[in-house]
Structures are given as structure tokens and as C-alpha cells.
């Protein structure tokens, strides 16, 4: 007679099957912990410390960095530039993106190819785009400068050396590179719209404008809202274009918050103040995004 085991072991492969979600979430959680959660809390830690070069040490400074931040006129100037940059670029990219998307929303031959071309600007690194526009806008060698001057739209003052035109000079590079991103998102939304309401509207004699205003825009509102949110956050942390094209100049005319935070952190080794600036940027983005999500009734 053989002994009957009191408990039966599951087959080997059963050990790798579990009803718990944790094993499946673990890789993602680990990544989040290492690359998001830990840096976030370390940033908070840094914001109440400051690196003292002479003593080669991080020293606790309490709220000094935050006090300094709110009394720092450079920071407020950089925030204003960032908000203007974000607002203007977003508006132009939104309008241009929608116009181009409407033009390309067709099944006629060749339109697929045109839509494919839109991805080209997106694969260029922003720093390279900035170098291209730096040359295009150069006062002596720049093609853009030459034609703007020939048309009487620009004086002898270089675009990027004039406080009143420098920011626009940088924004042109951003708009050129990222408008196609908006077009692609809008095109995806447009092509997913059901045709029936549009056919009914045409039968009822609605004009193109009425169709766009009464049907396309409302039906696309969530897509537009998502696109604006993604681009808005991206624009708010703009760094590459200003770093390459103007270094924040002339003076402080194109200093963005990201550039200022980077400079304080890495050029001047003020790790505490740099962390405070980046936390402040995060808070501003979160507040604006929260209000925006509330206003547009976006659901995640």
C-alpha cells in the first residue's frame, strides 16, 4: 500500500500562474520607482538643501530656495516668456494643424503620400532643427533674413538679436517642427468620425462652415483637447530651441523656465535652487493642466 500525500503539489507550470496582478505590474512599477518616484522625492529633498562648493557638501537650507524663487525677477521673467511661448505656439499649431488636417482629409490619390510626408519633420532632433533655423535666420548668411528684408518686413537688426523678434524667431522653428504632429492627431480624429451626420447635414443644405462649426468641431473636441494638453506640456518645458538659437538672449528675452532651471543646476551647480525651479515648473504645469482638464471635461 502506498502512502497518500496529505497535500498535492501543483504542477511546475502552475507556480508561474497567479491571480495576483502584482507580478505582472512589477516591471512597470520598478521602472516607475527608479525613474519617476525616487527622482521626484529626491528633487523635493534637494529643494530644501543647497550644494556648497567650498565645502563640497549639500547643506540644509530650509525654505530659503523657495523664498529666493518668489523674489527672483529672472524666474518671473522666465515664467512669462515660457507662458507666452507656450500660448502663441499652441494657438498657431492648433489653427494651422486643423487647417492642414482638413485639407489632407481625403481619399483621393496622392493624399496618403502627403500625409506620410508630415512625419518627416518629427524625426529631426529639435537641436538640429534649431541649428537649421539659426542659419536660416542669420543676419549675414540667412535665407529667411534675406527674403524678409527684401519684402521690407525686417530691418537691419538680426531676428535673434532683437528682443522684439527673437522669441518669434525661436517659435518659428518649433511651429515648423511640431505643427505636423497636430495635423496627424487631427487627421486620425477626422478619419474616425462617422460619415452619416455629415451626409445628413449636406442633404439638409448646411454650408461647409456650418458643418465644420456644428459637427466637426464638437465631435473632435476630445481629440483637440488631448492634442492641446500633450503639446501644451511639451511646449512648457521647451529647452532645445532656445539653448541652441539664443542661449536665452538677447538679454533675457527668450529665457524659458527650463533653460533657467538647467543653467542654475548644471552651469552654476546650484542643485537645490535648480530642483526648486523644476518643482515649481511641475506645480505650474499641474495646476494649468488640472484647470484645463476640468474646463474641457476630459475623462481619463
Amino acid at each position, binding site marked *: 500500500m502506498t502512502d497518500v500525500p496529505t497535500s498535492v503539489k501543483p504542477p511546475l507550470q502552475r507556480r508561474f500562474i497567479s491571480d495576483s496582478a502584482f507580478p505582472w505590474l512589477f516591471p512597470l512599477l520598478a521602472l516607475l520607482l527608479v525613474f519617476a518616484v525616487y527622482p521626484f522625492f529626491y528633487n523635493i529633498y534637494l529643494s530644501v538643501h543647497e550644494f556648497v562648493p567650498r565645502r563640497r557638501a549639500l547643506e540644509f537650507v530650509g525654505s530659503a530656495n523657495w523664498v529666493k524663487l518668489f523674489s527672483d525677477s529672472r524666474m518671473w521673467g522666465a515664467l512669462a516668456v515660457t507662458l507666452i511661448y507656450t500660448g502663441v505656439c499652441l494657438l498657431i499649431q492648433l489653427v494651422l494643424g486643423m487647417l492642414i488636417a482638413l485639407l489632407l482629409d481625403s481619399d483621393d490619390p496622392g493624399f496618403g503620400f502627403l500625409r506620410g510626408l508630415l512625419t518627416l519633420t518629427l524625426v529631426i532632433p529639435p537641436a538640429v532643427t534649431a541649428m537649421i533655423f539659426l542659419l536660416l535666420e542669420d*543676419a549675414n548668411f540667412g535665407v529667411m533674413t534675406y527674403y524678409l528684408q527684401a519684402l521690407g518686413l525686417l530691418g537691419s537688426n538680426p531676428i535673434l538679436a532683437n528682443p522684439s523678434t527673437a522669441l518669434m524667431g525661436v517659435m518659428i522653428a518649433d511651429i515648423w517642427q511640431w505643427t505636423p504632429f497636430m495635423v496627424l492627431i487631427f487627421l486620425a480624429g477626422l478619419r474616425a468620425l462617422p460619415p452619416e451626420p455629415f451626409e445628413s447635414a449636406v442633404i439638409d443644405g448646411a454650408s461647409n462652415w456650418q458643418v465644420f462649426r456644428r459637427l466637426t468641431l464638437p465631435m473632435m473636441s476630445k481629440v483637440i483637447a488631448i492634442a492641446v494638453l500633450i503639446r501644451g506640456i511639451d511646449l512648457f518645458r521647451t529647452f532645445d530651441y532656445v539653448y541652441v538659437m539664443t542661449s536665452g538672449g538677447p538679454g533675457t528675452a527668450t529665457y524659458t523656465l527650463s533653460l533657467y532651471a538647467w543653467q542654475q543646476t548644471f552651469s552654476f551647480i546650484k542643485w537645490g535652487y535648480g530642483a526648486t525651479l523644476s518643482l515649481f515648473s511641475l506645480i505650474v504645469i499641474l495646476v494649468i493642466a488640472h484647470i484645463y482638464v476640468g474646463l474641457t471635461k476630459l475623462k481619463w
Partner: protein
Amino acid sequence: MKFNHNNRKRYLASVTDRYVKGQMDRRTFLRSAGKLGLGAGVLGLSATMPFGGRGGFINSAQALEIQPDADMMAWLKDAAKPFAGQTIKLATESTPPSNAINSALKPFFEEATGIKVEIEVLPLEQVLQKLTLDVASGLGTYDLYYIDQSWMASFSGDVIDPREKYEANSDLAMPNYNMDDFLPALVDGISMYDGIMVGVPYDIPIFITMYRKDIYDELGLKVPTTMEEYMANAVAIQEAKAPEIYGTTGQMKSGHYSLECDWTCWLWAHGGSIFGPDGKFTGNDDAGMAAMEYWIKLKENMPEGVTTWTWDGQGQSVLQGIAGQALSWGEFFPWWDGPDDSKVSGLMEAAVPPAPAAPLRTTDQTGYGEIPGVGHQGGSSLAVSKYSKHQDAAWLFAQWATSFDTQVYITALGGGTGPTRESVYDDPRIKANAKPGIPGTTRHLDVVRETIASHMGSEPDLPEWAELSNDTIPVELGRFWAGEYDSPKAAMDSIAKKVDGILKG
């Protein structure tokens, strides 16, 4: 053997294939490539920045003839036996010496010593970040530090004084290294801080006068010996040639260190200084105002783009033939004189900077070790980290990299970069390249040597200088050139207030 275009390509493909497969050693490959008139460029040795910049150029002709000093290499082989297998690391700016060592010379050191050398070539500000992180952590990630002259105060406590190292261990003291051979002005200007020798002089970009001889001859201009003559020549060229060719050019991008470099040149040349003996900013005094007036007038004879250019754009403006003269980095000269991409090849000449318009201030009239001089220098030194775990291996490398023999090759391969050793200037191999219109000409080096000896200006040494010279001063100067200040006095007063505020903490 005579090559037509197709034969050249076939020959190159063949030798490259054999080199890659290990059927040909590096030296034979270089010699073979040299038959095509190709050189270091084939191996990716060229290390120019987008506009050429201060990165320097590899002289292909010299790349074929590297034969390190046999005695030195034999000594290295012997001295390095205990350290064979170690790896040492250096983070450095993209400068001619670093590029030449990293691209072409390093294998000779590694082969002789068995020490592996890892060199990270980075933009200057990233080098500063890496060094700061290294000294803050004390980990000794980098065994060697590339120390810009403006950082000496910050890192003087984190390095080993090379004089002490040389004397402390005779087994590791390179025979005939001869520390006295380093140009004395350089030792004071880029290596010494508060009695400590922070590192050995490594490279020396310095302002010299460079001008278009063809234009000078055409207009009957003399080489400027005074600031007034320099201005007069700029005005004369401007009146005769603009807008095709401007009187002079600049590196005046707002918020960039290059703008501060230009400013100090004019400031010192008018008897001014950045700091007074009490440590307060003095760029807003009478001499400072005279300098600004001069600079404003000079800018009227520059291309419109100067306020958007760093040294890259300035170099490009001369290269493209739109500027008649410049008082700027001597490292530009071989680039402009080279036959490949320059419109002014063979047309340039070099001269020492003009005499100052007012007596230069002495060091006891300035602050933080500032040494006024029209020839603004941006040199650096090579230092052994006191946190390094391979200090002896790093010290061997530092000696080899700054030895006479290596400096000769650096100067040749680096395309006429200024050596820091007196004897290198007189070496026949360097003299042989003193010809117009060839790659990596050295015909400006006598001027460089004289400028170092008699006209050199050095920035102050203080820990806050990195912030002041890279942000506070060039940002406010940028605002001035953008028209945001009513007068130069208002701009300089504003800078004084900000600088003194930062120094007070």
C-alpha cells in the same frame, strides 16, 4: 603611383578593408591613405565643431609621420609596469590637444604602458558639471581633470600639485620632463592659484591680431600697433568694402561666454579691469566707459550678425571672407589659412595685439588675481585628481601628454594650436609647417608665443567666476547690445550691482 578618381576610391576601399580585417597595421594604413592625399580625416580624426570653432584641425600631412621619442616610450614602458591593466579617465573640452590625443596619439601611450585611457570629449560646461560631481562625491570617477583657467579657484583643493608629485616619487618622474620649459606667463596665468600649482599647462587659446593682407595692401593699411590704428583700419575697410566685406567682426552672442571674452579684451586695452583690489566690480569706472565707447564704435564696422554669434560664427565670418580683420583666438588662424573650406586661404596674416590705449593695470590694482592684457587667454591645465584610485598611472599620462615630444605632435596634428612649452615653438617639425595656405599652418605661432610672453590677459580666479562670466556679465551686455539700456553707463552700473550682489552671497 598616379591616381585618377576611380583608382583612388578602389585603392582606399582596398586598404581600408585590409585595415579593418587586421591585415594591415595602423601606421601602414595611414601611410597608404596618405598616398591619396587623405590622412587623419579618413579615420575620423578630424574633430571640428559645426563652425570649426576652437576644436582645431588635424593636419593630415603630419599624421603620417608619428614616431614617438623612443627613449621616452622605453622609460614609460618600464615605469608603468606596476600599473599595466589599469584604466584612467579624463573629461575634457573639445580642444586641439584633447582631440589630437584622443584621435591619434593615445594608442602609442596605451601600447607602451598597458594603461587604458578613456577620454570623454564634451562641451566646456559639461566638463565643469562632471568635475563638480566628481569632487562633490569624492568618488574619483575621473583620474585626470581638464581645468579651465577660470575654475582654478574652485578645484585647487581637489588636485595634486604636479611639482610635489614630480619630486616625491623619482621613479615616476619623467626624465627630461623639464617643468621650466613651460612658458612662465602661462604657468602663472593658467596653472597657479594661491601658491598651488593646480595642473600642468595643457593648452592656450589666446587673442592675437589677424587680418586680410590682400585688403591691407589694396587699401595701403599698416599693421595696427595701437588701438586707434586698429579702429582706423576697421573703419577704412568698412568704408571701402562694406557690405561685401566688413571692417572687423565679433563674438557677441548674448548670454554666452564669448561675449565676456570680447568685452574683457577692450576693457583691459583701455586701462580697465573687471575687479579692483577691494574685490568690487570696476567695469563701470572711467576706463570701463572708455572701453565701451570704443567697442560701440568698433561694432559699427562689424556684420549685423555679430550679436548672434559665438566664436563659431565669428570664425565663420572671416572664413567666408566677409570680415577684414579680427582680434580673436589665434586657433582660428590655421582654419582660415587652410585650403579646403576657406575663402581666405593664404590671405591672412597674424600680428601681436595692438598696444593698449591706456596703461594696463597691474595685479595689485585688480582683484582675485586678474592680469590685464589685450591678449585675452582661455588656457587650461591638466591635473591629477586627489580622489583618483590610479594617481600614479594618471600622473604618467599627464607627463606624457604635456611632454615636449607629445606637444610637438599635438601642435602638428591639432592644426597649429599654440603649444604651452617654449621649446616646441622652435622645433624643426613645427617650423616646417610655417607656410601659407596649407592645412594646419604654424606660421602664426611666433606671434602666439610673443603674445603669451608680453600681451597676455588672464581672467580673475574666484569660485563665482563661472556664473559671472557665463551669465551675469554676458546676459547684461547682451541686453545692452539689444538696446535695453539707455547708455553704456547704465548697463555697466547694472552689472556692477548684480556682480557685487552675487559676491556678497
